[in-house]
């Protein structure tokens, strides 16, 4: 087994010729993996775009049930944890073990806080029946009380008119409702149809993101545990670096999710 030029006790796998080759291979591999993660979420972003494009009324109406203050808080938490993570990588490079320990701990704390806030939000949705597809069972009166702004949306603009889906063609009887029928069924509805779609998208996106936060925490936790063995130093900070890259990606995805779901006009 070869050793690093500077003599540090870090061994590189036998199939690499130089430590540099090993390091760069690892880095490239990680970036490619991150690209696959982006595409995994890409599918959900595409679904979001399609449904929001076709049914803006649903999104405008339903996003009021999300608490944008909690969302903003979570954004702040994640950005801060990204900062501590980046700083942790730097202190690993500089060989500052004490600082590294502290910063990793702070990052872990940030991730947990994020999940905590998310639990509060989910619980609220659960209580009000504001769930996905089949599970969508809102309690209108109660919810309207708590979310006057949603009721306002309805009062201000008749949402039915904002859908981008043209009315179904009127076929021979039995194929589709005539225009009048749909409208009649709609006029006295309290909310746009298919609000559950928004919550389906919301839970799919934040749920998958939440799973990624958990995965990120596990990875950083693993890096943290290995700290004790004195695993990292100026010539061996790859694991910290890679965990950091992953964490930044998780953060970045949330930065897109927050405005798309919470801040709709």
């Amino acid at each position, binding site marked *: 087994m070869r050793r690093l030029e500077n003599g540090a006790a870090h061994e590189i*796998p036998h199939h690499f010729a130089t430590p540099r*080759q090993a390091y760069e*291979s690892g880095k490239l591999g990680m970036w490619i993996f991150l*690209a696959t993660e982006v*595409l995994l979420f*890409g*599918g959900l972003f595409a679904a979001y775009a399609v449904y929001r494009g076709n049914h803006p009324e649903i999104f405008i109406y339903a996003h009021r049930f999300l608490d944008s203050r909690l969302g903003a808080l979570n954004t702040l938490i994640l950005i801060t944890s990204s900062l501590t993570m980046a700083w942790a990588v730097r202190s690993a490079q500089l060989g500052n073990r004490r600082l590294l320990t502290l910063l990793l701990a702070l990052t872990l704390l940030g991730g947990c806080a994020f999940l905590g806030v998310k639990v509060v939000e989910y619980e609220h949705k659960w209580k009000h029946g504001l769930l996905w*597809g*089949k599970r969508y069972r809102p309690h209108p009166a109660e919810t309207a009380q708590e979310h006057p702004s949603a009721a306002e949306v309805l009062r201000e603009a008749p949402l039915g008119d904002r859908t981008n889906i043209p009315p179904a063609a009127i076929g021979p009887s039995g194929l589709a409702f005539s225009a009048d029928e749909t409208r009649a069924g709609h006029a006295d509805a309290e909310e746009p*149809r298919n609000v559950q779609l928004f919550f389906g998208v919301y839970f799919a996106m934040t749920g998958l993101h939440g799973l990624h936060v958990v995965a990120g925490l596990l990875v950083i936790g693993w890096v943290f545990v290995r700290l004790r063995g004195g695993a990292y130093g100026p010539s061996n900070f790859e694991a910290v670096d890679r965990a950091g890259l992953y964490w930044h990606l998780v953060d970045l995805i949330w930065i897109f999710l927050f405005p798309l779901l919470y801040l709709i006009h």
Partner: protein
Amino acid sequence: MNGSTAVADNYLSHGRGFRSWFFTLDHKRIGVMYLASIFFFLILGGFFAMLIRTELLTPGRTIMDADTYNQVFTLHGAVMIFLFIIPGIPAAFGNFVLPVMLGAKDVAFPRLNLLSYHLYVVGAIFSVVSILLGAVDTGWTFYTPYSTTTHTSVVSMTLGAFILGFSSIFTGINFIVTIHRMRPPGMSWNRLPLFLWALYSTAIIQILATPVLGITLLLLIVERLLGIGIFDPALGGDPVLYQHFFWFYSHPAVYIMILPAMGVMSELISVFSRKHIFGYKAIAYSSVAIAVLSFLVWGHHMFTSGQSDLGNMIFSALTFSVAIPSAIKVFNWLATMYKGSIRLDTPMLYALSFLLLFGIGGLTGLFLGALATDVHLHDTYFVVAHFHYTMMGGVLIAFLGAMHYWWPKMFGRMYSEKAGRLAAFLVFVGFNLTFFSQFVMGSQGMPRRYYNYVDRFQSYHVLSTIGAYVLAIAFVVLAGNLIHSLFRGRKAPANPWGSATLEWMCASPPPHDNFAEPPEAGDPYDLEHLVYDESIGGYAPRTAREGA
């Protein structure tokens, strides 16, 4: 070392027992395990195919009822696609050959490589378990709302496919990094063997398309388990969105299948024509062009789904453009053969079959890519014949060619040429009997995935079934020949075919570490300097022989 003498310790004898294989980090052993598993699923998928063809011998019931038939054709498709053809060439031959072609000791991430194999096994188990729990009957495409309403075990099967997707992604990551970072001295990008260019392009698709399949299947699973409603029209969702997602992966996936096959072709055609490959750069860059274009044409599977006319027209035009890089390759192979001294060894017979069969498959793709004809041909046996000409006539044939080409390297034994050629001939005849008849009946309106049919199609179905039986016999001959060679075959020389790529510079089978020192790479298609040496029964560099 040019390896003309057998090395005592090779990768096969390096360590014994189940654990030394199943937990090995050696890319060669992983490749061999993949080969065995993939071949097993090829046989399993073939078994389902025989059931399908037998059932279709007569209209109405022949050996099974209609619901079973739906399950059998779904299993055939799913097993062949997810467990055989997608991992196929890259996982089995790519794993074995890629590092050796680079003169490297292993792929960049051996552990990830092993993980990829283990995930393959786990994914395969989920898929097989789904058969026991009630095999899926939706077709391999799992279209909603079939897949959200059927009572069969969709979750187990799609979870299996999801896991297999990860296995594929990890292979892709490994290959890209290895090719970028581990090329030997002297191997610039323009001296990369074309098989590696093909694997590289394949890997791009694997890492960019597979995650989209992943999220699609995940959504399908939560749809079934929790009723999330994204694809369910009853809940406001859109089933056509599922089709978009599915084909956004699955069209590029057909190039995950065919690009490595094309890479194999480039190697075979040059070696067995004893001539430098013609148009190296055109072949190399057309692989990348195919990889890029493949992401832009998925809508051609949905011409009749009600997507917008404008969308249809754009997808149709882009579909035609994919044919250009494919044709560039075919013409360059033909030009390579021109005035070469062609040797009709078994691998070359498969290469020649590929040229003809893939030609037909690709050209009929253009019929389907044209809007007006597709409305007539969509969901008929014409489509079935098209994709079998590309996937079986193209990919499987190249897979068999690769298997016969690298077999001596992998196991150090030569098989019987006579039996090999006989099997190749039978495959060719059986294949055309099976699927050409399907073009004819498809164009006359025989719909695909049907259990029953009107009497006038029966003669075509009978022909097709006879062809399928011929194929089965061909496979028995083929497998018998290869297995026999393991025990009785002549010892293989280091370079039996006279190829100039690096894997032929080390012994057959290669030693555990491939190369002690990274070899100097030259032009991978400079065949002139290799001459046949009676005494070793294989080829050796001219200088080495004269020096001896």
